[in-house]
């Protein structure tokens, strides 16, 4: 390592993998991305994958139907553990969504060019993850057909939702998040839908993409307002995404339950959300670029950058775990101290140690460039981190609820078949939606890629 700064544009600097492989033109990026949607025949791999995912969605439907027939008693929840898998899964899914917004909004505001080729499917991932997340609190209410009670509508009962409750804040936070993510995604898609309309090969494609593109015609006046709206949306989505997981953490930290009632929760939940979200983006991006030959667009630079974000947010999460312990002992509160020891020595300690292994120890391998640049290692790492983040929510929800203030209120929790089948079912729903998305809409923002081509050719001219 030399002390002097290497020249930024030095070609032999291995770190500077391009964000877009050289030699691409406006037409070539457009052709390549649009072809995945418009002309590529359905392969056996897609059909097989979709069929499996669709089958798992049927498991979800069966689980939900049985739940509605029998009630939440089919799950492992009971007094004192009223939350269980439903809330664990809700927090896990909603956290995964956060990386999509981070990539599309925060990296946009920071003018990070490398976000371009991953923002579209990261946003799609956000929407699908929020859809999966939204199922859980809904069915957890026990009477999901009464879920509209949570919205303030004038009823003959004359009562309103309790706006001093974090659970109602959550309703507003998550529904706003879902709506704004959908708007942001659609605005980004608009020019690409017009591109697909102009290149559509069949009448069906013309009608569908024509209707969805709203008659977008790439006018400079339109682009001007479009960019203004897009920038504003990015500015609005940034505090929104931070607020959503903050409000989710309020569900816990506003309560006085030991292990929940801590001020570290909001930042540590947000960092954990981004951590698991980037892991999920990698889980999706690595097979996607391989199967559809998009290595020119999703380069090693993207994968390595995402690995670095995971390493950084993983360290924040590790700090959160440390502070939880430190504050428990520093406060001297005997319930907090007891809960901390229960995490290490209680009946669920193996979950806690698995969590430390998945979320803190294994990701330290990302310090090594060899690991960050190894696609297989990154893929495995992303699965490990997603498992770890799920365990984190399990530890938070279950250990605290099983070790309340009074020993007479202690209990045990174990999930039933229906807990698992519902969770696995939402995984199937997520995967099925991703499969449909990849073949129905451009998985990479085409117009932004054309902008990147222009940007690159400008850069070349300036260097010459």
């Amino acid at each position: 390592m030399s002390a002097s700064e290497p020249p930024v544009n030095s070609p032999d600097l291995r770190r500077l993998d391009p964000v877009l492989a050289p030699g691409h033109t406006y037409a070539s990026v457009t052709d390549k991305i649009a072809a995945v949607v418009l002309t590529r025949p359905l392969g056996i791999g897609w059909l097989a994958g979709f069929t499996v995912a669709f089958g798992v969605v049927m498991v979800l439907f069966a689980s939900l139907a049985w739940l509605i027939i029998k009630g939440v008693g089919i799950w492992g929840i009971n007094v004192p553990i009223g939350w269980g898998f439903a809330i664990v899964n809700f927090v896990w899914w909603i956290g995964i969504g956060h990386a999509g917004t981070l990539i599309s909004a925060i990296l946009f505001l920071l003018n990070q060019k490398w976000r371009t080729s991953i923002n579209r499917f990261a946003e799609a991932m956000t929407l699908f993850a929020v859809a999966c997340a939204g199922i859980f609190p809904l069915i957890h209410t026990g009477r999901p057909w009464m879920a509209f009670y949570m919205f303030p509508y004038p009823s003959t009962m004359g009562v309103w939702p309790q706006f001093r409750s974090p659970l109602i804040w959550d309703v507003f936070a998550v529904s706003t998040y879902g709506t704004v993510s959908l708007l942001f995604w659609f605005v980004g898609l608009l020019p690409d839908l017009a591109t697909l309309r102009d290149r559509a090969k069949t009448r069906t494609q013309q009608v569908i993409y024509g209707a969805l593109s709203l008659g977008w015609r790439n006018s400079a006046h339109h682009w001007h307002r479009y960019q203004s709206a897009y920038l504003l949306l990015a500015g609005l989505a940034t505090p929104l995404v931070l607020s959503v997981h903050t409000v989710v953490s309020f569900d816990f930290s506003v309560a006085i339950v030991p292990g929940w009632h801590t001020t570290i929760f909001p930042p540590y939940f947000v960092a954990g959300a981004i951590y698991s979200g980037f892991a999920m983006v990698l889980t999706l991006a690595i097979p996607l670029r391989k199967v559809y030959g998009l290595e020119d667009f999703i380069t090693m630079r993207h994968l390595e950058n995402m690995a670095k974000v995971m390493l950084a947010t993983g360290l924040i999460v590790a700090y959160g775990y440390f502070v939880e312990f430190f504050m428990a002992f520093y406060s001297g509160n005997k319930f907090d101290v007891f809960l901390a020891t229960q995490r290490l020595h209680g009946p669920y300690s193996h979950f806690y140690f698995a969590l430390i292994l998945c979320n803190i120890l294994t990701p330290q391998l990302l310090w090594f460039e060899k690991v960050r640049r190894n696609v297989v290692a990154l893929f495995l790492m992303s699965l490990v981190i997603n498992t770890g983040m799920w365990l984190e929510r399990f530890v938070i929800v279950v250990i605290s609820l099983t070790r309340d203030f009074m020993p007479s209120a202690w209990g045990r929790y174990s999930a039933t078949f229906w807990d698992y089948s519902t969770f696995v079912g939402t995984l199937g729903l997520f995967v099925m939606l991703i499969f449909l998305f990849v073949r129905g809409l451009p998985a990479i923002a085409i117009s932004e890629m054309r902008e990147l081509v222009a940007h690159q050719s400008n850069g070349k001219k300036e260097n010459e």
Partner: protein
Amino acid sequence: MEQRSQLYGVMGEFDTPEQIMAAARKTHEAGYKRVTAYTPFPIEGLAEAIGFKWTAVPLLTMIGGLGGGLTGFAMQYWMMAVSYPLNIGGRPLNSWPAFIPVTFELTILGAASFAVFGMLALNKLPEPYHPVFNVDRFAHASTDKFFLCIEARDPKFNLAETARFLRGLNAQHVSEVKDE
């Protein structure tokens, strides 16, 4: 029958962002007012070069945000303190810190909705039909070609002269745009 096919304007095609920027500037300097450019991606300064000065999108967004936030807070205040006041241990009915999260979320919701639907409304979208779609080569506007269209309702418009003017700017495939 004559009104079946009206002339909408004349359109020229360019190959690069630099060419269309130069052409747009010259067109504006030549005194044409009703000019539109069509490009496969946003080009900085192009809208300004053809005389587009101000967009109401930020203002609309602010109105949406303020409206959402004020409505959100007023709603909670009214429901919690006026319509159905609950005395919980004598705590204040207007417990405003507890109303902040929902106020914040509704601010964002209002602002984002106004930004998106305001942008679409100002752009007069959805608009499935537009005369420029009648030009065959116009489909390339979403791939790799850059178009400049001078509309027939421009006071300075004259079919032959305007077409010659566009050719003088090195435009290729100068074609009439018909409104059928």
